[in-house]
């Protein structure tokens, strides 16, 4: 039942994505309530899936790579639904839907939903550490999406090639402000998540710790560069895209390895 919910959710994001692609190719993109609705519906089904899986496991459903990907996709949708309308980032849905669709499709198609006996018993600190860290990744994912939007808009402005999507972008300066806020939000949540990791009462997996701090330092450096004014907004946007892409790849690697050996 839970996988069916996830398939329906993925279809919702797929519909939102296809509709946007058709509109953009037709040269008549308009942000519409439809996209927001499709994403909201997709989010509802994701939540249903996570709830059922959580009930079944008796803990937060992030016990394997499959669940981690779905939880991450859920975090991305959640943060989009929370901040998208507030920051007039309606177009962000057009960029968010493909990301969530990609994450969920990979999770559904790859043979990664493997149930293994869990080494650790759930403790509140462990659950807090894992869930808050993943929500932080959701914020970084949205910062990556906003960064991508910034780069697309900046490129169109520089090249003077304005397509039908151009006038639906949030203003460039607002977009940059949104990137900054999302990175701050992700950084704040990641800090809490990492701190919670020290209170789990379990031996620290060194590779995971090193990787987590690597990500934390990278985002700290982005924020520092942003506030010192030493790096151009375009580069900050590009760094957000690179940082999330790298972190996502590493997240996959680390989670995959941690299931097979103790890290």
């Amino acid at each position, binding site marked *: 039942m839970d996988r069916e919910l996830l398939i329906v959710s993925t279809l919702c994001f797929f519909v939102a994505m296809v509709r946007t692609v058709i509109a953009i190719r037709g040269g008549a993109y308009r942000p519409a309530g439809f996209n927001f609705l499709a994403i909201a519906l997709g989010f509802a089904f994701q939540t249903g899936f996570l709830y059922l899986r959580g009930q079944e496991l008796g803990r937060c459903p992030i016990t394997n790579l499959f669940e981690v990907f779905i939880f991450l996709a859920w975090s991305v949708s959640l943060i989009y639904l929370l901040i998208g309308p507030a920051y007039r980032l309606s177009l962000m849905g057009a960029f968010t839907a493909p990301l969530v669709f990609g994450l969920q499709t990979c999770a559904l198609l790859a043979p990664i939903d493997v149930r293994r006996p869990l080494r650790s018993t759930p403790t509140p600190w462990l659950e807090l550490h894992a869930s808050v860290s993943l929500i932080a990744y959701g914020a970084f994912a949205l910062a990556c999406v906003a960064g991508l939007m910034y780069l697309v808009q900046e490129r169109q402005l520089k090249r003077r090639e304005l397509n*039908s999507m151009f006038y639906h972008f949030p203003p*460039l300066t607002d977009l940059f402000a949104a990137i900054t806020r999302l990175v701050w939000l992700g950084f704040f949540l990641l800090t809490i998540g990492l701190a919670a990791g020290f209170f789990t009462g379990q031996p620290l997996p060194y590779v995971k710790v090193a990787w987590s701090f690597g990500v934390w330092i990278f985002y700290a450096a982005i924020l520092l560069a942003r506030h010192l004014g030493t790096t151009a907004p375009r580069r900050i946007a590009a760094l957000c895209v690179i940082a999330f892409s790298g972190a996502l790849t590493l997240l996959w690697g680390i989670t995959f390895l941690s299931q097979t050996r103790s890290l």
Partner: protein
Amino acid sequence: MHLFCVGLSHHTANVETRERFVGHAEIDRVLRETAGCAEAIFLTTCNRVEVYAAAEDTIPTERIAHCLLAAGASLGEEVETFYRHEAQQCVQHLFRVASGLDSMVIGETEILGQAKKAYAAARDSGAAGPFLHRLFQRAFRVAKQVRTRTEITRGAVSVGSVAVDLAEQIFGNFETRKVLLLGAGEASERTARALVKRGVTDLRVSNRSFERAEALAAQVGGRAVPMDSWETHCREVDILVSSTAAPTPIVTREILAPLLHDRVNRPLFIIDIAVPRDVAPDVNEMEGVFLYDIDSLQSIAQKSLVQRRQQIAAGEEIIAGHVDEFSGWFISARARREAAALELRPSES
């Protein structure tokens, strides 16, 4: 009951002809009492003069044209330039007009406000009855749908508005933005006015002749700054509008680089409307600088116009559905009215 429209527009008559038929204060009364319309709405804009009317009998175009004559003017051969649309065509014409499909600048939105004003005036004077009330209310709905469901209003179609739209796309709100005008010519003035209209409050004008800079600054609510200090001001501003008569570029990479040093997180939008250009083209390659010259602005305006034209078919499709619906309502309303009139008539025995 006949529904019809008689009028002149930029499609059929030149401005000299149109200005002879601007109507007068008593137009609503004259259209009903002299011309014999049961209901009438008079719509006048700088590009059109039209009467939408409902009448029991057919009213000749000449009679309507005569009512529209400005004080002291007489009716001549211009009456041939009037067009006339009856029944369904009249409905379609109004829907096209209200949606901006019949405007000189396709998709312009001012016409809807003018149509609403004309309707309100007729309603207040009692000239708009149930048929025109329904027709105009539907027209306003159609216009809204055409705008929201098509791209007919998308993109600016004049150089000034393209520049201001781009600035808005970069900065969003103009209230805290600073603008520097280099040159105080007509082109600068037009752009400055458009920026002020959108909310710019800090506007500085620099010109070789300081008196001219002061004059323009006074007109647009800005302040004049000496030409030799423009570089200092350039450090602070977000938008630079240049339109001097300099024969060679006055803004180059070498001049701009030190000015941009302290503003890494703030983009600079340069609008170069001078011919020959005031800003060296390679300035656009600088980080955070967006340079648009007259050619690039014109090209965007032209593209918008083409895009708007491409949206006409989509607009017409929306209109066609509404025309059918309204025509259906009109026929049944007219039949009901005639049946009621028959019932009221004393029976023959």
